[in-house]
């Protein structure tokens, strides 16, 4: 009890001093209101989304998740299957590319790079995160798309064409592969900057010890740095995934917006967030609006799960290392 009181300032502390301090009271008031309004906002948004989506949830139930249709049967049938597929493929595809790249960047910058490279390159990679997604999407249309159809796509199809995911030569720059590359660019600064922090925090005694035992650089990374940071890397990946799942504008510009499920990444597709961004304004019928908000419900559940998982992992690691 005594410990807890020491830790908790606020009214108890004010009272103990026996004197009312307006500044402290105001600080308490403002910060408390800010914290409460954050929680309140989340609750209100969730409620509003559920209310708006209710007509579609009532009509389609859970079969919405397994229906591949959008406005079929004279605008009476809607389903999320192809968008869930598109979201999963593009975000996990991007994660698959971004994770090794980010780990390499973080390792190089913390363990191997000379100081001046570190000072120049690290802020530049962080700046990648500052590019507005609409600008990145535009770059996707103007530069990345033609590059995929002209150079990258034919090359990949030529060498890896036996894989079903590269089965066709891309005819147009708007496809799932373009979306994956754009999302990768968005994920790398997030994952790499967290990993950099993680690697720096590995105690140098451990690394020095391993080196003293005759370990090579790679063995230190493999045996000390990675195991120490393992859980943190997982949390970073989940945060990156959350970013990719929720990204709407840049994806909607490059993915081709087609209601279809193709194993072939050079074919167009669509994601949950992209569909909502594309069609919420001016939807033809009330049912279409409700179905779009139903997509938002799915997206919200996805993001909540991702964020909670990341928090759990971080908490577990913190507990293990007795960090509070």
């Amino acid at each position: 009890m005594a410990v807890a009181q020491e830790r908790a300032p606020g009214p108890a502390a004010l009272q103990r001093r026996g004197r009312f301090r307006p500044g402290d009271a105001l600080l308490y008031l403002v910060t408390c209101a800010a914290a409460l309004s954050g929680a309140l906002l989340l609750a209100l948004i969730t409620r509003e989304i559920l209310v708006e989506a209710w007509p579609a949830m009532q009509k389609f139930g859970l079969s919405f998740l397994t229906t591949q249709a959008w406005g079929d049967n004279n605008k009476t049938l809607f389903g999320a299957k192809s968008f869930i597929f598109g979201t999963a493929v593009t975000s996990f595809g991007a994660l698959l590319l971004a994770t090794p790249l980010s780990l390499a960047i973080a390792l190089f910058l913390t363990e191997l790079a000379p100081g001046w490279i570190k000072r120049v390159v690290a802020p530049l990679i962080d700046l990648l995160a500052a590019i507005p997604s609409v600008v990145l999407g535009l770059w996707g249309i103007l530069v990345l798309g033609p590059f995929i159809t002209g150079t990258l796509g034919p090359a990949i199809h030529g060498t890896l064409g036996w894989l079903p995911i590269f089965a066709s030569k891309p005819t147009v720059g708007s496809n799932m592969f373009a979306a994956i590359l754009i999302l990768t660019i968005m994920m790398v600064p997030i994952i790499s900057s967290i990993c950099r922090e993680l690697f720096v925090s590995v105690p140098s005694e451990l690394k020095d010890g391993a080196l003293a035992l005759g370990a090579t650089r790679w063995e230190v990374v493999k045996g000390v740095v990675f195991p120490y940071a393992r859980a943190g890397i997982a949390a970073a990946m989940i945060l990156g995934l959350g970013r990719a799942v929720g990204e709407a504008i840049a994806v909607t510009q490059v993915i081709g917006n087609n209601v279809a499920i193709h194993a072939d990444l050079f074919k167009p597709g669509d994601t949950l967030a992209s569909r909502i961004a594309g069609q919420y304004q001016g939807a033809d019928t009330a049912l279409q609006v409700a179905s779009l908000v139903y997509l938002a419900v799915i997206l919200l559940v996805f993001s909540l799960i991702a964020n909670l998982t990341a928090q759990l992992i971080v908490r577990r690691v913190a507990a293990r290392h007795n960090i509070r």
Partner: protein
Amino acid sequence: MKEFVTRRKRPLGVLSVLVVAVTAVAVGLTTGAQARSSADELKGAGATFPAPLIAAWQTRYEAAKGVKISYNPIGSGGGISAISNKTVDFGASDAPMTPDQFNTCGGCVELPWALSATSIMYNLPGLPNNLHMTGPILAGIYLGQIKKWDDPKIKAVNKGVNLPSTDITPVYRSDSSGTSFNFTTYLNTVSRQWKSQVGRGTTVNWPAGVGARGSAGVSGVVSRTPGALGYADIAYALKNHLKFFSVQNRAKKFARPGLAGIKAAALADRKFNPQSNELSIVNPPGSKRFAKAYPICTYTYVILRIQSDKANLLKPFITWALTTGQQYGRPLIFEPIPKYVVARGKATLKKVHP
């Protein structure tokens, strides 16, 4: 001690709720004030299709009447949302509003105020402008059944043209678009399969092709993708130097989306939809009167609130747009609207009041 803590906490909790409430009210007031535009200004938003015409009106109307017109071309769907949310004084849409949208809008009227055509643009390097196209072929392409440019059906209407064997990439609007409504309405009239499988609307479930956002997105993908084909208003295709088809009408003539072709199509529908004032002039009959008609033409509409604080400014502006304003459309390939459409517009406008 413990009791003291809770007692001390309670007033703070109440106060913080008060702070939140006051902030919320303040935010509400400021946004409310922003929504109301200043005294001599009319704010609009909506379709990209009439944007060049409205831009031509802005300067002339301000010079003549001293009223500033601002217009934000965010797409037909965005225009309908904006007028429904009362953030603008007028909305613009190429598609007539659906009954559901009228419900959401709550006390709105819609009337046709401009007339133009949707062009079918293509990217075939080395081939001339105004190649020939028919409705059934277009439907086949967008259904994913006609896949190559040297398909016998396309060759049959383009004799002597050396069509390549490249893939056709049909491009469509991914956002809610009145141009899509116009185009799919046309496909509905020329293909039974299209009508039963896809239908018409500002957004439909496109069986083939790729989506792009806005007219700019569609023309962007078309101009960067050899073998691509897409649709946008003719002013847009001309401005961006894209090639476009002459499309066969029901009189079996190939017509260009020019003023003559639009003028000929304009009289194809005289029956206004009682709620939305829709006039559907796609694919006019094959009689001699419509021999020159371009088959993918559309009226585009303005949406107003029946009860509007700006009624005293709005009504003169819309009347001016329906009459004097029409002449400025010709250089932009907007054909002046026929007299009976003007009369209907003026009659509808009478419902609007402060």
